[in-house]
């Protein structure tokens, strides 16, 4: 009798890349539902367009680089990038916004650096940064949440789709009239126009911690993040250090001057703090890989997020904070190696 000769270990692997990506999508699902409930179907339309564009770009790039196309399309990584990007794009967006975002993410950030596993920067955040810098106006088309009672009914699925395709709304609705700034935008504008925080936060968009609707979306993002933690798909180090850094900074400044600096809970529950902490900063490829490195990396992102939001030129800073810290990863990986068993320090 003859048997095959393969090197050990012979035990079955416990996980796979597609499985990991599938769980990330599952973890995002509840927050996506909340998003649909509060802000309409826009996120789904964007996610579909972005996914199609991302997969197309992925296939094209693999072709160009003469790599096998099918396994890479099935690994789910491009899909996750596209879906994360969709969370960052306003629900009301012309079709080319998610397309350009997704194509930049896949082509610029991923394949020009060597494809899956080799990219230095987080693809979704590169796509987002490209959009934010190139189309600053379109990136502000956020909608008021359901229940904010601003006199407008939320834009329906049909209208969103129509806007995505044609770039315009029905006659009765003007873009300026239906869109609404995000709570972070409002805080920023209010503070620059010398309002106090209390005055800004008395507006109809606020309520709860991070703003109407956002509280729900972000809480469900946190639930999804805990699911990933529980499944062992992400580790606690990055989310904890990042959120802790934001919370500590916010709490200190809020205590110093509550009229100019928002509270820790506002910072944690608005913008992309939780999405960033659980889903973006934890992107394995572009994050630090050692535990100590992860703590530093997460804390760095948290500090930068707070700094950009408070003193920088953008209302939210998660994307830039992540991209900046991405650049430090090779160094972090190198200088935070754990001590090897049986070796001196």
């Amino acid at each position, binding site marked *: 009798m003859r048997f095959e000769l393969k*090197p*050990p270990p012979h035990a079955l692997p416990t996980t796979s*890349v597609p499985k990991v990506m599938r769980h990330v999508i599952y973890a995002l699902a509840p927050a996506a539902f909340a998003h649909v409930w509060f802000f309409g179907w826009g996120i789904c339309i964007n996610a579909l367009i972005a996914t199609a564009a991302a997969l197309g770009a992925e296939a094209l790039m693999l072709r160009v680089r003469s790599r096998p196309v099918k*396994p890479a399309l099935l690994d789910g990584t491009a899909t996750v990038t596209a879906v994360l990007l969709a969370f960052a794009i306003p629900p009301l967006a012309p079709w080319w916004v998610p397309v350009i975002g997704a194509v930049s993410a896949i082509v610029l950030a991923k394949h020009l650096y060597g494809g899956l*596993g080799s990219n230095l920067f987080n693809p979704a955040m590169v796509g987002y940064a490209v959009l934010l810098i190139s189309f600053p106006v379109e990136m502000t088309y956020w909608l008021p949440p359901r229940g904010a009672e601003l006199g407008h009914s939320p834009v329906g699925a049909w209208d969103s789709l129509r806007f995505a395709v044609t770039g315009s709304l029905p006659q009765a609705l003007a873009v300026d009239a239906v869109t609404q700034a995000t709570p972070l935008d409002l805080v920023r504008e209010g503070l620059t126009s010398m309002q106090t925080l209390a005055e800004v936060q008395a507006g109809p968009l606020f309520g709860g911690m991070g703003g109407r609707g956002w509280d729900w979306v972000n809480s469900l993002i946190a639930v999804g993040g805990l699911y990933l933690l529980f499944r062992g798909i992400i580790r606690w180090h990055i989310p904890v250090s990042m959120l802790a850094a934001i919370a500590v900074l916010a709490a200190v400044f809020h205590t110093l001057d509550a009229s100019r600096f928002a509270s820790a809970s506002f910072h944690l529950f608005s913008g992309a703090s939780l999405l960033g902490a659980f889903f973006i900063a934890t992107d394995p490829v572009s994050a630090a890989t050692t535990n100590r490195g992860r703590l530093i990396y997460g804390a760095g992102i948290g500090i930068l997020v707070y700094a950009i939001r408070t003193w920088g030129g953008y209302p939210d800073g998660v994307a830039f904070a992540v991209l900046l810290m991405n650049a430090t990863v090779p160094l972090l*990986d190198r200088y935070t190696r*754990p001590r090897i068993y*049986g070796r001196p320090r």
Partner: protein
Amino acid sequence: MSTGTPIARGLLPERLIIPMDQQAGPAAVPVVEVGQRVRKGEMIGRPGGLRSAGVHASASGTIGAIREGPVPTVNGLTTSLCVHLQTDGRDEQAPSEGWPRERDARIDAICNAGIVGLGGAVFSTAEKLRDDAECDLLILNGAECEPYISCDDMLMREHPLEVVRGALAMMDLTGAESTVFAVERDKPDALRAVREAAAQLGDTRIEFARVPTVYPAGGERQLVELLTGREVPSGSYPPAAGCICQNVGTAFALDRFMRRGEPLTSRIVTVTGNGVAHPANVEVPIGTPIGDLIHFCGGYRGDVTRLILGGNMMGYALPGDNLPITKAGNCIVAAHADEIRESTGEWPCIRCGDCADVCPPRLLPQQLLRAATVRDFDQLDSLGLNDCIECGCCDIACPSQIALTERFRQAKQAWAVVSQRAAMADLATRRHRRKLARLAAQTEDIHRQQDDLIAAIGSEDSRAMIEAAVARASRRRGESDTAH
């Protein structure tokens, strides 16, 4: 599972293939001839040097042949001299030689009795016991080395007295101050059995420890850390951390030898996997062809794609089943295609760090992988390539399903070759330098002689010598002038 039934006994194949190379040290040297009749327990190979061990007939019978053949050793499949023994089924025992009184004689007797570490490393037990290093702790390793293996569990359950007695003997031989007997959490029956045995023997010196069932807790280095918090320094063995580790199977073998004078001629082997009809733990005479062992367990079942010696984490695949079970053979897995890893392709490393989370010596397999791909040996060295115990944990955890362990194994080999070459080149350079230096010294010697001469030319008596020579010369000239 293979723990449902008691240890199966009575296996006696018609032919035994007993390799001389079964231990970590040098191979044994055959002391029998073809055609010779031997009894069970008779020495057929004497220890071939330090760290070697005796090899004995595992049954009575006639020596059929002594020739080179393939043998699965700890270092993979190699060839070794094997004694082929035609068994006669009479089970005649060689007379025992008795247990000596002196410590040194006892240790020599253990060496001759062929007792080696039965956990899989087959390191000479005598050598471990002889070592006078400052070892204050004896660790009895009752933690299986791999998830599939249950031979130690069964042994503790069925022979707790022998195991504990063996452990006590080891304590006396090493003079260790304390002894910790480690048993995994999920083996309460085994723990209870050995505890009761210790109580029955009136022993209070042995401390029992329950260790978590986390592969590879049974690995010596990991066990030392788990039990004592000490670390075995990189590149050395547990004695460097003041510990001696002995497997429970070894303790059992030692007790058998002490009490009955029986050398090591059999061991417990776990036979498991979906591809074997009746998985079981079997007491197997050393040298039994694996095919006979499988047959004893009801034969193959279904389509067996891989036959693994050792567990499915660190064991290696065998080409065929005509190879013998050696003292290192703790487990045979006959596996169907669906219970083993198929290398169907890998994704690129996504840097998730899951590999690092499970690596027992706390390496960074993902960084090692990168360095191994480009064969950056300096980087591999500082990342601790040689501290990799090849446990396979990183492979199993890797979502990209990268064959990390195999890459590290290959990198180690490549490194060994490269450093050997470097050492050779270094040696050649040094030799060349020495030669140059020698030549230079010789030249210098000649120069010095010449210098001495020249210096001598400048001195007083040499002037007189020269003058005398000149006078001699002119006189000769004068003489020759007159001669014309």
